[in-house]
């Protein structure tokens, strides 16, 4: 439209019209922008409110969370809720357990999915396509539909009430999404690099270890954050496989805490905040990887 208008030789009248048109357009754009910002800010407030509510409650004197009108900013803030809540139950031990499980399982996922992803991406072997379809198919398999036989399996192996069911499967590439992700990344490396290295006497494992893996470090970063969050927040697995309190993870510990201190919302919120803070911190540090990972799911999925 504008192009057509510009093409004509503008009379004085015409140019005045044009100026007006552009001004109007400008105003319109500004109004649209303003509405967009208002909506986004409103949305952000809605999303942040539960967190603010959580922080507010966690700083109240136990008992005062049940007073009306609500004091949104507790005066004075009671910081002792945090150490107090944390020490009523062996949360330190549960933290150690959670860290141990998360670290080992994440390590397992990184190693196994790198090896498997490399195999599918860079080496040609009979049945590769079919097997890879199977990998993708397992992404659809709901975990709850196999918990009974898994429980029986781990019982027979003597793994119940140990960390093994929560860590060892990770070394065998049970998370198909990670394999898929790394395969996509390995595929982007030029084959010439492999060939050059092989001419120099590099073995396939050497190509994997010294050429391919260093080139897909960002993808490993994605898997690190995904796996960390998943293991840290996992509830169903620990609930089924762990039974003695000294083996609990933080998620189970919180549940235990809830059953013991049902109405102590101030302490519950304080401890819950501590439990989810590593996820928030990691998200802020590694946001780049995380967002990239999610977006790739969309593009390549």
């Amino acid at each position, binding site marked *: 439209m504008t192009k057509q208008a510009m093409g004509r030789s503008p009379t004085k009248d015409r140019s005045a019209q044009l100026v007006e048109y552009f001004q109007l357009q400008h105003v319109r754009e500004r109004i*649209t922008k303003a509405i967009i910002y208002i909506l986004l800010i409103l949305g952000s407030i809605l999303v942040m409110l539960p967190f603010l509510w959580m922080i507010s409650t966690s700083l109240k004197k136990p008992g005062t969370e049940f007073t009306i009108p609500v004091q949104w900013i507790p005066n004075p803030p009671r910081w002792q809720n945090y150490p107090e809540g944390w020490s009523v139950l062996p949360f330190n031990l549960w933290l150690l357990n959670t860290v141990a499980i998360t670290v080992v399982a994440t390590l397992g996922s990184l190693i196994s999915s790198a090896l498997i992803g490399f195999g599918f991406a860079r080496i040609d072997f009979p049945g590769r396509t079919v097997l890879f379809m199977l990998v993708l198919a397992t992404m659809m398999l709901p975990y709850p539909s*196999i918990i009974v036989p898994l429980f029986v399996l781990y019982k027979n192996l003597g793994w119940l009430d140990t960390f093994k069911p929560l860590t060892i499967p990770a070394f065998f590439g049970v998370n198909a999404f990670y394999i898929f992700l790394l395969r996509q990344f390995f595929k982007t490396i030029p084959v010439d690099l492999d060939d050059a290295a092989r001419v120099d006497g590099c073995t396939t494992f050497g190509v994997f270890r010294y050429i391919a893996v260093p080139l897909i470090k960002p993808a490993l970063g994605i898997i690190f954050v995904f796996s960390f969050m998943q293991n840290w*927040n996992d509830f169903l697995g620990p609930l089924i496989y762990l039974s003695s309190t000294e083996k609990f993870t933080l998620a189970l510990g919180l549940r235990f805490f809830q059953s013991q201190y049902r109405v102590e919302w101030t302490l519950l919120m304080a401890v819950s905040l501590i439990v*989810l803070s590593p996820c928030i911190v990691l998200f802020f540090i590694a946001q780049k990887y995380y967002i990239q990972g999610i977006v790739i799911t969309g*593009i390549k*999925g």
Partner: protein
Amino acid sequence: MLGKSPIYWKRALEGYMFISPWIIGFAIFTAGPLIGSFTISLTEWNIVGTPRFIGLKNYEAMLQDKLFWQSLKVTTLYLFNVPLNLTLGLLLAILLNQKVRGLGIFRTIFYLPSVTAGVATSLLWMWIFNPRFGMINILLKEVGITGPAWLGSETWALPALIIMSMWGVGGGMLIYLGALQGIPTALYEAATLDGAGVWRKFLHITIPMITPVLLLNLIMGIISSFQVFTQAYIMTQGGPNYATLFFVLYLYQQAFRWFNMGYASALAWVLFLIILICTYLVLHTSSRWVYYENE
């Protein structure tokens, strides 16, 4: 294939070695249990004794089991969260894609609830839904509305969990945003030259171009809705009066509270089949509405 060189076969062997962890893992932790699940579902077994073969009796019993139907109903009703979250997520992504300043900050805020999902946030929402002292009813009171008992109400417990699920809308939003940013601007420019307005460009360019991720979000939404467990276990234990008895919660109770391993396995297979059929139906109809650039 047999005519291939020895080097090919040496490589192929190496390939199998690289993927061998997956082959072992698939057999032991996925395929085996899936078959095992079906075998157990044909038995009556309380895990300590020996399983007794009863054929398809568990599946027959399911038809008479009121709680089975209830859990199916609850889970199906909960599916309402899927279109809600799809629409809201898309809307947010479109807003964020308008070259706004502070994109990174908004993106972080909207995505934050998704990284904290678990027991801690379930406890938080229990407190938010507290009928007298929770945040929602206090805010409602400010505008003169007396809020319901939420998790304590048979009518409102499930809607409460759907509201809570909408807090995680940022997950889908990020995927849309990635797709929106991948649409070539040339398409919009060409349409503008042809005189298309904002609305037409949205309908005829934006929507078709993001149908693949719409499909992905739809399938992921359905699959995860069928697997809701933690929220229900922590917040309501399936109550009040089974109003939030989600399918997986019922499965868990059958298996690990009442130790009906056979019956729980039958439920597990039904869950597996339901998800399989749903995914198939969605994929089957998708060829009619999903647009792939490369085809």
